[in-house]
């Protein structure tokens, strides 16, 4: 009986030692981890430096290169909606959570404008200051800011791949990269005239033809 008591006490001690050994192993693992981290950060800094230097060399080779580079950096946006559509076709939703779009004020009657005339690459529509502007088609808001000749512009990248510019708009209730539903209230007219530009893959489309299409 006494032997068995000693045995159990020994087992107790052995367990405690095993526990301590586990902690020591963890400490050596930590050291190796820290060394790995230093090499990781160094390689990342090196890759970033290579990228910056090659860009600088490329730009400085010719004027043409500079213009190409500027165009890619400042004017093109990734086609979010087409990537999204492609993925959703094969794999279902991107996000782990799928929710119905929230209740947003919807303007069913997209009001007729007093006059629609050709303007630059799009159309200029006469309306009244403060009138609501609703989205022609659903999509993602990719740009909010000033554009030459169009005033304050909101560009929506539509789900059908067509970009729509809404010019002279204010009080936009969405922020960048929000999903805007068709006929949702986008904003209000800043002045008596508002602009629409319809663009697909660099081509400018006709406003009225496009409106009939969607």
């Amino acid at each position: 009986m006494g032997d068995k008591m000693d045995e159990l006490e020994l087992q107790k001690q052995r367990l405690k030692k095993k526990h301590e050994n586990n902690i020591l192993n963890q400490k050596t693992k930590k050291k190796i981890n820290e060394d790995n981290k230093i090499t990781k950060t160094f390689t990342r800094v090196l890759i970033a430096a290579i990228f910056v230097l090659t860009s600088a060399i490329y730009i400085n080779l010719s004027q043409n290169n500079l213009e190409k580079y500027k165009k890619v950096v400042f004017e093109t946006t990734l086609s979010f909606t087409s990537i999204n559509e492609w993925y959703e076709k094969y794999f279902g939703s991107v996000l782990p959570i799928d929710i119905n779009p929230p209740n947003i004020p919807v303007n069913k009657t997209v009001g007729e404008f007093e006059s629609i005339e050709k303007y630059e690459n799009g159309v200029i529509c006469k309306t009244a200051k403060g009138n609501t502007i609703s989205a022609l088609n659903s999509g993602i808001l990719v740009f909010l800011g000033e554009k030459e000749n169009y005033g304050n512009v909101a560009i929506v990248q539509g789900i059908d791949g067509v970009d729509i510019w809404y010019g002279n708009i204010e009080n936009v209730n969405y922020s960048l990269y929000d999903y805007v539903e068709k006929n949702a209230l986008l904003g209000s007219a800043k002045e008596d005239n508002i602009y629409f530009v319809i663009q697909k893959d660099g081509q400018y489309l006709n406003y009225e033809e496009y409106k009939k299409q969607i």
Partner: protein
Amino acid sequence: MKNIKNKFKIHPLTYGLLFLSFCSGYFKNILIIFGIVIFHELGHFFFIHHFHYTILNVEIYPFGGLTRVEKLINTPLKKEIIIALGGALFQILLFLIIFLVYKKGWILDHTYNLFQNYNKIILIFNLLPLTPLDGSIIIHSMFEYFFPYQKAYFIYLIFSVIALFGFLTFHSFKSLNNYMILIFLIQKIYEAYQKRKHYQNKFYLERYLYDLPYEKIKSHNILDIKELKKDTLHFFWKKDRFIHEKEYLKEYYSNKT
């Protein structure tokens, strides 16, 4: 609070999901989702720290986060339930915070709606009784309150499987995400089934090694190790007197060897 950097891990698949979401234009959505998840884990962290337990790690997976804590299997049921509910509590707090931020005008309608919807869905999801979500810990603790440890574990496994079938009927099979969540849940239930003997032995060993704070005392006429229950100190009648459960455990294990 010390080595929190080492303990906070992000699973590689999460980075994949982040990249995919950014390419699809879902910047705000995905950042809100992970912000809510992190705040939820903070809730667990707060209560774990309050009870002076140590956190092993916090891992963020594409569908949520898991906090692993170093605690005994014999932790008092009240503490288990409070830690499990900690995340949900912080999410309710988040509802209030977001509401105040919205009223002050710092965020717009669209963002506010997104936040509240995601918060609600993540809260409900976490309270489902599926392993290893918080809801399952609460259900397990309830079983352990009424039944001895072994029986409670068995009922818990069966309940998890039934709950999994329930989950299957409600979720669509169109998206890859749901399949991955399903595989993860099945894996965790299988793991819980595989490790049952290990946990059982740990349960008995802890009771033998440590002086745990029990809430109740119970006496038994039959020498049966399966009667051992959480939060309860047991005495067994042997021949002519009552023996403490530690004595019984010692005898049980020495007889085994």
